[in-house]
């Protein structure tokens, strides 16, 4: 409060200017994408960019009718991202609680192994999984994609939930145990309700990571399992790109994740730094 008043006028103008430029740089591409998705074919590729035009829903209508119906792609995306996030959340929460309470000696090494699994380059994970999935007949299947997404969502969920659990005061659990709760009851009735925000944040971030995946879906996907990012990529053909449809798909892919992400904004710092920095 007070230090803003002490910022001299000129500096304040400078700050506002930087913020304005930052916002323009950030928002113009997104707004342009949304705007273009309502343009007719001629307006989208007009040599002089058009800010004012006659809006049309044709791009969206065409996405949901005819040969390249987007419906199955959306369904595949929802299944693969949703199932893998739910599984990661359930298994990761339970394991994360174990990790945060255990006193076993190799704990540091286990923790390091978990984080390095999460951080492994995607290209490096895709390569052996491609062979294993081919052997197991998991190429072009939703279970294959779910497993592939678990390779990064599960270690993420374990590590992050463990970080959220360490924030819960140990005294609360101790007193629950003194009251006669079993350790499971203490976890279920006392600790878990206190980490609701952690659970939601973990789920949302898992969902965003897997919904936005391209590299795994590109190699493992097929007619029965293609996801939305692949649908967008497939509009890019040798003969040209239908930018009206592409910007419409882009808007469809991006909007739900933005809303989900902003819904957990308060805990984003904790989530995205894997518990290393806590905000607010």
């Amino acid at each position, binding site marked *: 409060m007070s230090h803003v008043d002490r910022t001299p006028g000129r500096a304040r103008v400078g*700050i*506002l200017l930087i*913020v304005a430029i*930052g916002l323009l740089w*950030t*928002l113009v*591409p*997104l707004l*342009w*994408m949304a705007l*273009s998705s309502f343009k007719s074919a001629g307006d989208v590729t*007009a*040599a002089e960019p058009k800010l004012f035009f006659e809006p049309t829903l044709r791009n969206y209508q065409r996405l949901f009718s005819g040969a390249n119906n987007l419906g199955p792609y959306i369904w595949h995306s929802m299944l693969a991202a949703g199932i893998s996030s739910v599984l990661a959340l359930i*298994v990761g929460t339970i*394991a994360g*609680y174990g*990790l945060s*309470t255990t*006193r076993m000696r190799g704990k*540091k090494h*286990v*923790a390091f*192994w978990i984080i390095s699994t999460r*951080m*492994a*380059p*995607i*290209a490096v994970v895709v*390569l*052996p999984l491609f062979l294993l999935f081919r052997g197991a007949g998991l190429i072009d299947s939703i279970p294959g994609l779910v497993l592939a997404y678990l*390779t990064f969502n*599960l*270690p993420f969920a*374990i590590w992050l939930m463990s*970080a959220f659990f360490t924030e819960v005061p140990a005294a609360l659990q101790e007193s629950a*145990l003194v*009251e*006669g709760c079993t*350790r499971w009851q203490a976890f279920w009735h006392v600790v878990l309700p206190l980490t609701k925000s952690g659970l939601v944040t973990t789920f949302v971030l898992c969902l*965003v990571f897997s*919904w*936005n*995946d*391209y*590299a795994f879906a590109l*190699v493992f996907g097929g007619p029965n399992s293609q996801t939305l*990012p692949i649908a*967008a990529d497939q509009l*890019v053909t040798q003969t040209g790109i239908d930018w009206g449809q*592409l*910007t419409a798909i882009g808007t469809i*892919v*991006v909007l739900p994740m933005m809303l989900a992400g902003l819904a957990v*904004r308060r805990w984003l710092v904790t989530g*995205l*730094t894997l*518990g*290393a*920095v806590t*905000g607010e």
Partner: protein
Amino acid sequence: MTTTLETPPRTDPPRPTRRRPRLGFSAGMMAPGIVLLAILSIVPLLTIIAMSFSRVRLLGGVGFDGAGLTYWVRLFTDIDLAMQWVRTIVFFALTVGLEMLLGLIFALCLWKLMRGRNAILSLFLLPMFVAPVIVGLLGRFLTDSTFGLYSWLLGLIGYQGDILGGQYSAFAAVVAMDIWEWTPLITLIALAGLTSVPASVREAAAIDGANPWQTLRHVILPSISGVLLVALLIRSMDAIRYFDIIAVTTNGGPADATKVVPIRLYETAFRFFDLGYAAAIGLVMLAVTIAIARAFVGVLERKGLTR
């Protein structure tokens, strides 16, 4: 699970013997997750190691023929790959460096801005949630030489030319797209660090007669250095992880100008199906990430966060 068998009926009052199953309970909770993760990570790891020493057959069922050290020898004599590593390091240094700088500047500005800070931050965070493929395709749309909004704007100030067609401009364009998507992450983390700098520290600096620049340099930056280091390491690991933007914009071109190591790996594996060599390239990438992850965990341990 076995602990439940030992537990006496519920009606019993809590017994002091509870201490014993302590390790058992935590380990039992960890077990399913750890076993699943082991299957998901150790099996692929062993597979990729085996792949790097074999000629992999795909037709008529997956099969391995021993290839000895062929791929590893090739790895250390491959001039193209060395160039791609150099390019990867340049790409990495430019994107992560600029993201740190711009992210910090923006965080400082937002921090000084009391009113509307949360709303502006929310808007500024939006690119992080955009799928990298869409970032790439949107980048292509904006830089298209005939109708792209940004090419048009650049045309107004006299730049004519196909942005993704030129070697330097294509490289600059993919760097810019990466910066667009990930600068907000640095801002978010740095701002969290800034808001936790106690007001008393700043007041003390002001009373001691420090000007704003000195306060920033000697008081504020040192007190958020730990947070900035976390941001740097998180971003570094992700920078090596993702390659979607380049894959859908230039796919390594023009004339290899944007061919970074992950793109090379993909091409080697899934265009030329030289899986053994791709595995060797991948293992080196993995070693690099593990080194960064080591540093990350080191920072956490110094802060006492992993206990």
